[in-house]
């Protein structure tokens, strides 16, 4: 078979880093081709060049044996290249059809468009009601909006950037079915991921990138996951080690916690129950937007509840604010690094003060002890291997992984009794992620109760003693993490939700439920 897209010697350098170095590979029509690599391996830069968002410094591409060098995405789209981004560009206050129309060069009338959306969604098994507000949709449904937006252009090459990071296992199945249908019709799919099992079930070919270079290509079905991982990382990663200490007393006891979300499109917490023991790691899974942010806020003290809803060592604390809880030993690290866990334009020293002022004694009579704050920041940088020229650097100058190590380190070093983290390794490279997970396990081994909210199931299975899932603001019962199957996890995450045909998921249903 002749190839649809060939890439030869693509190179792109940014100041200080070569994002892509002499990258060469080809995709055939109807092929599902995986682009595999760690964060920072150059996957994003490469697809941005194919999609016309970035111009290469050297090298050439051919599409249908014609030279292909798009200077903007609309040129790429005109040639039949479509892309579904990891982060959606949708307006929550508009309907599905309106959102789709916004992305089109020449949108048809709404009614006609709605019909086409229905047709395509039925043809490819992606249930979606064009009249619903995007704000009411789950992450999986939002992704369908993006996919259908692409399919309406009848693409020859569909690029998907980490599409499953927001999906439940069951939703992943639906997506894969759709992608296989597309491939059978001759559409080539460039599938970007670092999840090896997915790639092994879905893809026909794989190109592995490391530090901007192609380090191998293979048929992923013929390789084991660990072989692929070694190609990707360059060496075998050792999984975090932990000792199986018995959990101690119940430290945190949450009963009947209900908190209304401050955000109109947020998810309110409904009657949440759980307990965590000293030295235990409770993993909380769930698809994004099911109450993760709200749960963190309710535990950190940013959102208040009735006193009895949260008990710390038997003492009601639901009404206390963040600093009062810090005094007691309840610390937290939110998901959003810049603008929530850290202030972007403040130095690391100032960011060390952000949560460390009280427990580390960084103030005296209200006056700041800058030298002590600087020492604390230095200690975090040293013990958590944060790569930065110095602690006077501003937070937003750090890479995501380094800032995340700083944020987690800041809390861990304060010796919490309870630590709540949300997405601790989101967008962090594998070695930093391993370090963070190890730090959480070490903390638990020293007797801290750790609550890890995450959308990364592998992560949760790796570090959790017990597992529960958030779904629509409710928390399932906790189950021992050992021995849980993917199907069981999927069911816990509410895997069945959003899988019905569109007519049954009309907005009214949700309101009744709420």
């Amino acid at each position, binding site marked *: 078979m002749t190839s649809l897209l060939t890439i030869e010697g693509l190179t792109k350098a940014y100041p200080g880093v070569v994002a892509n170095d002499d990258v060469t590979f080809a995709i055939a029509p109807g092929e599902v081709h995986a682009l595999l690599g760690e964060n920072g391996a150059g996957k994003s830069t490469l697809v941005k060049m194919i999609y016309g968002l970035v*111009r290469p410094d050297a090298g050439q591409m051919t599409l249908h044996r014609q030279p292909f060098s798009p200077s903007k995405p609309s040129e790429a789209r005109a040639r039949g290249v479509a892309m579904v981004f990891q982060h959606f560009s949708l307006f929550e206050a508009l309907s599905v059809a309106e959102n789709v129309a916004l992305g089109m060069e020449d949108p048809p009338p709404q009614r006609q468009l709605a019909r086409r959306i229905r047709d395509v969604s039925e043809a490819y098994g992606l249930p979606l009601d064009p009249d619903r507000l995007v704000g009411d949709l789950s992450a999986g449904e939002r992704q369908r909006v993006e996919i259908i937006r692409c399919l309406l252009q009848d693409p020859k090459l569909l690029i998907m950037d980490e599409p499953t990071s927001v999906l439940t296992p069951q939703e992943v199945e639906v997506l894969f079915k759709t992608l296989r249908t597309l491939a059978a019709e001759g559409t080539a799919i460039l599938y970007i991921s670092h999840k090896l099992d997915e790639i092994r079930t879905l893809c026909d070919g794989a190109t592995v990138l490391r530090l901007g270079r192609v380090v191998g290509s293979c048929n992923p079905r013929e390789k084991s996951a660990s072989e692929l991982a070694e190609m990707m990382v360059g060496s075998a990663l050792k999984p975090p080690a932990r000792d199986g200490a018995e959990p101690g007393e119940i430290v945190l006891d949450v009963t009947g916690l209900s908190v209304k979300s401050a955000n109109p499109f947020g998810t309110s917490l409904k009657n949440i129950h759980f307990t965590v023991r000293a030295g235990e790691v409770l993993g909380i899974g769930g698809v994004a937007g099911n109450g993760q942010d709200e749960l963190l806020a309710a535990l950190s003290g940013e959102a208040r509840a009735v006193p009895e809803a949260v008990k710390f060592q038997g003492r009601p604390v639901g009404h206390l604010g963040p600093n*009062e809880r810090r005094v007691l030993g309840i610390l937290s690290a939110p998901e959003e690094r810049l*603008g929530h866990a850290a202030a972007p334009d403040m130095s690391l020293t100032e960011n060390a003060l952000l949560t460390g002022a009280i427990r580390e004694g960084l103030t005296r009579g209200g*006056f700041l002890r800058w030298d002590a704050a600087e020492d604390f920041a230095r200690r975090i940088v040293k013990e958590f291997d944060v790569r930065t020229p110095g602690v006077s650097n501003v937070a937003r100058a750090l890479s995501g992984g380094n800032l995340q190590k700083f944020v987690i380190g800041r809390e861990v070093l304060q010796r919490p009794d309870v630590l709540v983290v949300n997405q601790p390794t989101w967008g962090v490279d594998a070695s930093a992620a391993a370090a963070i997970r190890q730090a959480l396990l070490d903390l638990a081994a020293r007797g801290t109760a750790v609550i890890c909210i995450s959308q990364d199931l592998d992560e949760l299975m790796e570090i959790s003693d017990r597992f529960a899932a958030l779904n629509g603001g409710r928390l399932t019962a906790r189950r021992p993490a050992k021995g849980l199957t993917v199907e069981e996890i999927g069911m816990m995450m509410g895997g069945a939700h959003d899988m019905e045909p569109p007519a049954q998921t009309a907005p009214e249903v949700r309101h009744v439920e709420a």
Partner: protein
Amino acid sequence: MLRLEKRPVPSRFWTIMTPVVAVVATMVAGGLLFAFLGKDPVAAIRTIFWDPIFSEFAWYYRAQLLVKAAPLILIALGLSLGFRAGIWNIGAEGQYIVGAITGAAVGLAFYPLDAWYIFPLMILAGALGGWAWAMIPALLKIRFGTNEILVSLMLVYVAEQLLAKMSLGLLKNPDGHGFPGSRNFQEYPSAHNVELIEGTGMHGGVLAGFIAVIAAYVLLNRHILGYQIRLTGQSARAARFAGVRPKLLVAFCLGTSGALAGLAGLFEVAGPAGQITIDFNVGYGFTAIIVAFLGRLHPVGILLAGLLMALTYVGGEIAQANLRLPAAAIQAFQGMLLFFLLGFDVLANYRIRPIKREVA
């Protein structure tokens, strides 16, 4: 073609240079304005910027400089605290008026008693008056989520009505032969805000201004409250996470800026102005907004910006008198300063890059 590109880190150079460039640009554009009005632009600019400090009557003007700068600096310092946290008190003019009224009222209530404690009590009353006036938008914002910009601004006009009422009624000089306005504090030593050093313009308000600069510097750089103010301005979400109580911060920032504006009003009414009159306020409360931004919301910057703005006031008056420039032209000139400052401010966070055609 040119385009703006966000800098990874704000440029220190441009953060400091922006006010300087803005002043130069104001001189150029102002010069053009004066030229269109048929005046010699060089002479006009020299009159505004040079004469108050170096001409033969400079001994008088220099004192005026401090007198004009003191209320600007006091008010701008207070405003800058709120501005740093994203709390916008636009009504300092009203707080200035109310502070003057309450402070003057306390002084007049003791007339003609001669006692050392009268002036300190007036200072207290002035600060309290301004504080109370600013707490109106603060409480409305805290309780009902109203917009402090609108409420504080509207309260300026209420304060002006109050001022007119007071100078025609309650506070009117009983021995004033029916003329509007209160007794003159310059004739009541116990309540007079005297020059601390004869002939320098150095009155109590100037001293208070200098103290406030130091206090604001310490607050912002050495105290947890100043840290919380800066954190809130950067990211309200991070601030809440750090345990900042947004409502308390609103009350603190608005209250403090109101108190400082009230102090400025008291020192003005008991000193340079001398009495409560219908036209007592001359817009210090609004000009202080320019001063706050011109000084980059930094205490030392505000000190310098206040002096510079006072210079344009004093110089503007000389230009009006000597060159017959219309008052509106001087006001436009001062407005240009803010305009250019905000315009050039972009350079601190962005750089201008030519759009180059990339080679395929």
